[in-house]
């Protein structure tokens, strides 16, 4: 005789062997990225990592692992109603785990902590503010072009729409639309001014206008090797704060533009965080499907399901095991 265990259990253990390699590859990649990147983000203000949430989820998985063991023990003792009860508890805890995970994901998404979305330097953060503010202006202008309050040939061209909107705002009988159009044109001009300063890379405060004859004359007047004062990150932050506190369009700016927050290596962090926790969450969902099958038997649960419960239990412990390492690596290290 060969190995003294059921074939299904042998198969499951072999599968777990491949699973160990699967997660080791991720963990190995994470270690290389983490240690090989001086300045890797660890501050929760940068990463939006919630240690408490991760800790609670660790506890949730440990409790659920314990419940699975109890359920399997009950199956072996033919106490099927007790087994069903503990499998249900496990299922409930799996939902709790995914719920807490979604809260964490929601926090990251709402702060735009997503791969390729994060500014890693002050310059990138300034450009991100520029793009997001432009998007806000476009959305505001779309209100008028979509409603056909104004008729423009190129609704994508902000300068044209702005000019038309200006005429519309000052026209008679425009009603409330015309009143709000004044503010949206004002916001457009604020963004345009900021955008021009960013493109020219000149100080918002020390160089009043970054375009037109006055600006060109100022540049002409510079002697060899001299340059106009450069745009500073703090100036853009202050300008954005002013726009957000404006009573007329501040709400739109606050909703559409995040406060600039450059995080060095933030994109790599977001990639590896979502990769590792995402694959782990998929494993949790698979485990829930495995437990759903015996639970669907209802009162017909019998000794034929003992091996199934044992094997899904082994898989569930492995999912717990992975989290036991992901928690310190991602949340604490």
């Amino acid at each position, binding site marked *: 005789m060969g190995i003294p265990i059921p074939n299904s259990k042998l198969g499951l*253990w072999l599968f777990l062997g*491949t699973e160990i390699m699967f997660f080791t590859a991720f963990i190995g990649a994470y270690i290389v990225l983490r240690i090989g990147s001086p300045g890797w983000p*660890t501050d929760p203000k940068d990463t939006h990592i919630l240690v408490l949430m991760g800790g609670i989820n660790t506890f949730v998985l440990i409790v659920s692992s314990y419940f699975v063991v109890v359920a399997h023990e009950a199956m*072996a003792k033919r106490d099927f109603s007790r087994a069903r009860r503990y499998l249900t508890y496990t299922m409930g805890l799996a939902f709790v785990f995914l719920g807490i995970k979604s809260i964490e994901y929601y926090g990251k998404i709402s702060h735009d902590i997503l791969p390729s979305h994060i500014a890693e330097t002050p310059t990138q953060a300034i450009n991100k503010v520029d793009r997001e503010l432009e998007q806000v202006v476009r959305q505001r202008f779309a209100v008028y072009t979509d409603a056909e309050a104004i008729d423009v040939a190129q609704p994508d061209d902000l300068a044209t729409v702005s000019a038309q909107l200006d005429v519309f705002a000052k026209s008679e009988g425009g009603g409330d639309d015309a009143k709000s159009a004044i503010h949206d044109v004002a916001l457009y001009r604020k963004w345009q001014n900021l955008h021009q300063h960013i493109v020219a890379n000149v100080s918002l405060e020390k160089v009043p206008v970054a375009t037109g004859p006055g600006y060109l004359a100022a540049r002409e007047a510079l002697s060899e090797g001299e340059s106009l004062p450069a745009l500073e990150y703090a100036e853009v932050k202050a300008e954005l704060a002013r726009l957000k506190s404006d009573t007329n369009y501040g709400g739109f700016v606050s909703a559409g533009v995040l406060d600039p927050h450059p995080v060095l290596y933030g994109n790599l962090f977001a990639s590896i965080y979502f990769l590792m926790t995402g694959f782990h969450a998929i494993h949790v969902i698979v485990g829930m499907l495995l437990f759903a099958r015996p639970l669907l038997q209802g009162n017909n649960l019998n000794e034929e399901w003992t091996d199934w419960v044992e094997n899904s239990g*082994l898989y569930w*412990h492995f999912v717990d095991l992975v989290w036991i*390492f992901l928690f310190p690596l991602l949340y604490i290290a």
Partner: protein
Amino acid sequence: MAHDDHSAHHVNYLAVFVALCVFTALSVIFDLVSFSNHAITIVLVLAVAVAKALCVMMFFMHLKFEGNWKYVLLAPTTILAIGLPLALVPDIGVAYYTPLAPQAEWKAEMDSLHDSHGQSAGHSDHTGHVEEQAEVGHSDESGDGADRHEESHEAAPAEKAE
């Protein structure tokens, strides 16, 4: 059947469960206590994680009571799993090349941002430390501490500039 044999081993699962809870509390405590070197925290929480993993594997997964087949099945994957990170050591431990990641240059811009915001004298040696990091490539733990410290100044200037 095989699982009936296992049931003969009376494991006190509740005791294992309590041990796992204590270990989890321990790793949270290690995170809250701020050691002078962040590396100490990392080593401690990873040691706790290994202890927890052993508890789960030995008792919850019954490996303590299984036959010798467990070694046949798990030795290859364990060796490969340990071998993979070790094979990556030349890349991270012995940085024999100059890092070409753009972040190596961006870091200077980030540091100058922090320097212009953080006025305390404690930062004076930071720039030197950055260069040292770029060369060694793996001594970022104390650097993290400094980053953390400086980052706390970051929120303030926005209001000041108003």
